[in-house]
């Protein structure tokens, strides 16, 4: 390699440096957004001639880092709208969804809600996917006086954001995430001292959704005497996880609680662990294993066994409305019941709660809807009952831990005494690739 290919003009070097900086800005500012543009899709059902449709706007991540979740959310919203319209609409009005693509970008989501509210003049708004996007979006939605019913903004930063503290307009129909790992902590606490794991690792993506529950779990497990052997936060947009995953493997931790936001993060850690011949006794992830078939196809069915994730809903939830949703979803999109993502149920629940509020208030007056939802009412959803506290958290949702088990089934396992819980796989089987 004695001779090198030469040389370019200073102008070209400057241009390329500018390109690097531009690309870096795109990557950092947009959580890997794919473009700054947004696209619009509208679902319209046949509208009765006499009544105008109820137009509901939402921004979803149809491309970008959260695209898997975003598209699941779109399916959930559309499925709900389809069901409502098939049964005659709400107050005799058909529902029309206006969905814009935010490319998983916190800046684009703001633009989208400005467009939906100020240009499209939608009647109501549904939330985007992820706490990361819900917080900036609410600054726009709250300012316009809209109720912001959502299912994927459960981080403390969402509820405690200044716009929500001032206007109390956020309503999260799903499980608040801060306490979602408590069933797992209680499980560890319930183990006899001789069987209790003694070490734990906590690798976390830098994300408002992923970190709080992991940090709380770390704090509580430490109090139980479980020694922390690794606890670090890595950038959410990091392109490769091998180095941190190898460090976790080298720690030999018996418990790994991964503050993940998506399937690739979990899959990368699993792959690195397998390469290092390291299998933690218990492996819990903030997100990823709840993605149904998307998770299974990425990590393999054998390796999925024993993987756990906290949530408030799973496809096996013994509720007639939930089972109806599963049946409809599988009939429309294919796959199996276990493969249905929790995102679909969350999105569907958003629609259900909004529909009940519209019916109760007799229209789409956002001030009345906000007042109604804060009125100590208990509402029904496919995820179970919903009742909002003063900041819009669902105060009556229960946290569960779910686990992939033999036979490609995704079972509720914790709390062990809860109805519907199966026996937990207490020691994750060795990797099977």
């Amino acid at each position, binding site marked *: 390699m004695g001779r090198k290919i030469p*040389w370019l003009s200073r102008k070209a070097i400057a241009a390329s*440096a500018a390109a690097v900086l531009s*690309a870096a800005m795109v990557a950092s500012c947009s959580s*890997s957004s794919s473009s700054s543009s947004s696209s619009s899709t509208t679902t319209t059902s046949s509208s009765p001639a006499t009544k105008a449709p109820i137009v509901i706007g939402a921004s979803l991540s149809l491309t970008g880092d959260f695209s898997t979740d975003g598209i699941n959310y779109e399916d959930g919203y559309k499925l709900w709208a389809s069901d409502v319209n098939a049964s005659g609409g709400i107050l005799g009005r058909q529902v029309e969804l206006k969905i814009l693509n935010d490319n998983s970008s916190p800046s684009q989501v703001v633009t989208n809600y400005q467009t939906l509210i100020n240009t499209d003049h939608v009647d109501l708004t549904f939330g985007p996917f992820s706490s990361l996007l819900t917080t900036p979006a609410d600054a726009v939605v709250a300012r316009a006086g809209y109720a912001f019913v959502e299912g994927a903004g459960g981080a403390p930063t969402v509820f405690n954001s200044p716009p929500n503290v001032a206007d109390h307009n956020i309503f999260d129909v799903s499980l608040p995430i801060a306490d979602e790992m408590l069933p797992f902590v209680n499980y560890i606490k319930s183990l006899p001292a001789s069987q209790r794991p003694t070490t734990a690792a906590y690798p976390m993506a830098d994300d408002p959704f992923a970190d709080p529950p992991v940090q709380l779990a770390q704090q509580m497990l430490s109090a139980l005497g479980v020694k922390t052997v690794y606890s670090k936060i890595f950038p959410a947009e990091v392109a490769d996880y*091998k*180095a941190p995953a190898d460090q976790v493997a080298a720690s030999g931790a018996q418990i790994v609680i991964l503050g993940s936001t998506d399937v*690739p993060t979990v899959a990368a850690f699993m792959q690195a662990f397998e390469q290092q*011949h390291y299998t933690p006794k218990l492996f819990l992830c903030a997100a990823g294993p709840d993605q149904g078939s998307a998770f299974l196809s*990425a990590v393999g069915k054998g390796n999925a066994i024993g993987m756990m994730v906290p949530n408030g809903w799973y496809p096996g939830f013994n509720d007639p409305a939930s089972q109806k949703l599963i049946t409809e979803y599988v009939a429309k999109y294919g796959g199996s019941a276990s493969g249905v993502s929790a995102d679909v149920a969350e999105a569907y629940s958003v629609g259900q709660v909004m529909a009940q509020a519209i019916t109760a208030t007799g229209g789409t007056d956002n001030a009345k809807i906000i007042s109604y939802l804060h009125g100590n009412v208990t509402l029904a959803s496919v995820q179970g009952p919903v009742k909002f506290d003063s900041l819009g958290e669902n105060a009556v949702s229960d946290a569960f831990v779910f686990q992939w088990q033999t036979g490609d089934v995704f079972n509720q396992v914790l709390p062990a005494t809860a109805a519907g819980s199966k026996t937990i796989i207490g020691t994750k089987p060795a990797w099977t690739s």
Partner: protein
Amino acid sequence: MAREIYQAIVDGILIGGVYALMAVGLTLIFGVLDIINIAQGILVVLGAYLSYGLAARLHIDLFVGLLITVPAMFVLGVAIQWSFIRPLRGRERTSMTLLVSYAIALIIEGILYEVAGPNVRELNAWYVTKSIHLFGFYLAYIYLFGFVMAVVLVLALYALLYRTGFGRSVRATMQDETAARLIGIDTNRVAALTFGIGVAVTAAGGMMFGATNGGFNPNSGYDLISRLLAIIILGGLGSIGGALAASVFMLTLQSLVDIWQPQWATAVFYAALVLVLLVRPTGFFGRAPVRAQ
């Protein structure tokens, strides 16, 4: 702590091999054509999808599949150059290629979303998850194979450029396109073939990316492009060996920072670029500009 440092160095070197495979095509294209190919990231992802398609549908081994995906990507590269890059002329050509290649990236991404959907895919083979125990470390076969492939590829590109008539045409075009045309070199053909080669080698990088990244979807290329550009600038724009050296340097540095403070790893990655350029503006292996005409 010593063991963690050694592990980080080993990881950095091996991951650096993967990045080199993704970056050499970019630096080759830049060196010959003065083009900043923003589409390189999505071309990496496309390479991963092609390998996935062959492995999942036809059960073709990932490395064997390169015998198909590399020529396919070569044809695609030639077609892109011929259709989108070649028509660009004039003083603003370099900056215009930024926009054009970005448009190409969006088109390819859109097609991938349409064809493959947003779900995450992962490339699997026995060597993806298996490892060998050497010197106290588990070294994953996929990274070892990838690193060897990166070295072989760099040597092959050097042989192509410095031991063949085509290589002489390429180098002549790089040094002075007008003079090359005057002595009878078909510079349009050289440009098309070079772009094609640059895209073709990206197929290998794409396969490695898909097998080591924990999964990919059509959006995965956007996190890559800024890093790849940083690598080729650090290595010396147009320097193929420099791309390999810079990849290993940057990824080793990042792995070492990961030990103490992973949140700083990305910042250090770019800080290292700035620091090196302050001392050596042409990067590790770049030369003083000779193209100024």
